């Protein structure tokens, strides 16, 4: 009948598991974990000033554009993408996107790693070698 100790032990275990984020970040976390990584722009990207769309739009929808491009190129054979601003781009991850954003580790990976996103773009596509 007197299971008070067992119940309290169970309650403590539950709370410890529940509060995982708090103690995990305290022990293993980086000090600046609450600051999002800033994707680094190459000189070429800075000079171009605008991407194929607005920055805020690109932040959330870039995967949609890439998906659209893939279907366009591989299924319809169309290589030319007309952007909202009227400019025309070649629809290609390796040749267009990564022409400016050639620093995969500091551009793509910085946010992807931070939010544990694991895109399978580079299962097939190659990316430019990082140069020091």
């Amino acid at each position, binding site marked *: 009948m007197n299971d008070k100790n067992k119940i309290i032990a169970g*309650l403590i275990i539950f*709370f410890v598991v529940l509060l*995982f984020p708090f103690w995990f*970040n305290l022990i293993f976390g980086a000090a600046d974990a609450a600051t999002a990584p800033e994707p680094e722009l190459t000189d070429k990207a800075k000079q171009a000033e605008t991407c194929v769309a607005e920055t805020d739009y690109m932040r959330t929808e870039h*995967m949609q554009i890439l998906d659209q491009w893939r279907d366009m190129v591989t299924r319809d054979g169309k290589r030319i993408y007309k952007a909202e601003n009227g400019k025309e781009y070649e629809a290609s991850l390796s040749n267009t996107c990564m022409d400016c954003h050639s620093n995969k580790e500091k551009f793509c990976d910085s946010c992807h790693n931070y939010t*544990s996103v694991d895109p399978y773009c580079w299962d097939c596509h190659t990316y430019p070698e990082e140069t020091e």
Partner: protein
Amino acid sequence: MNAAYLYSLIAVVLLGLISYAGAEAAGLEVLFGVIIPYLALIVFLIGFANKILDWTKSPVPFRIPTTMGQQKSLPWIKHNKFDSPYTTGQVVIRMVLEILLFRSLLKNLRTGFGKDGQKITYKWVVWLWLFALMFHYSFLVVVIRHLRFFAEPVPFFVTMIERVDGMLQIMLPNLFISGVVLLAGASLLLLRRVLLPKLVYISRPADFFPLFLIIGIAVTGLMMRYVSKVDVVRVKELTMGLATFQPSIPEGTIGGLFYVHLFFVSLLVAYIPFSKLMHMGGVFLSPTRNLPNNSRAKRHVNPWNYPVKTHTYEEYEDDFRDKMKEAGLPVEKE
């Protein structure tokens, strides 16, 4: 329309609108993004502990055997070990099966009339168990997956679960099976309550409200990922701020939908200790599940019985032996 689910639905929709307007138009991001989540967690911790400690005080002096299987008896009668456990080990197995597989829900019967409309029939119905299993496990996976927003670096088991959950590799962003199953499970449980007349009759707003709230959480979550995307990096900035006690609202827009999601989750978390959702702790304390059925082998004495004055036959005989002998009555001791 049934008032019980109408009110719950309206309540959830209103709360969603309040948080959307609050964060999007009124600039109350700090309230909905920092203050309410922390408050909800505090309410949950105190409320949950309070409830469990309150339950701890309820004495359970006797076994409560439920007739779900043959109890341990004579050696030639087959003992059903897990439905009527006798030892602590067997009880542990029954509890594990109950908590992980919801075996009680498998005993769900539907009463009705047979083809002739006269004879009462009992049909075994598996749906409640199936929907509950879908719902609970997908919810667990979704909660674990959300640790990617609350831990930096992201722990290996979260990445592992994401891999398995996203193994279909369809849609973009990659579809997580658990999210869809969670919404389906919760919706099916709701439909069950709404469409079966006998269930509507016994359902209260307290049954519908959490269901609508969870459906709201699932819908906003799926929307943020697949439809009207929010900036996930800024989201993690905010949640990591919460997890490291350096709360801040990141610069730039996150999107009102995120605040609705967070507000719904905060509400759910704060609501748990005061609702039927406490079954997450209560299931461990179910007396009909967690006690061995050994009343026939062991005597369980109620510990707060007051001492009863007894007068045994031996004592009686001692008192009256001479008189009994005189009257010619048989005595046990000479």
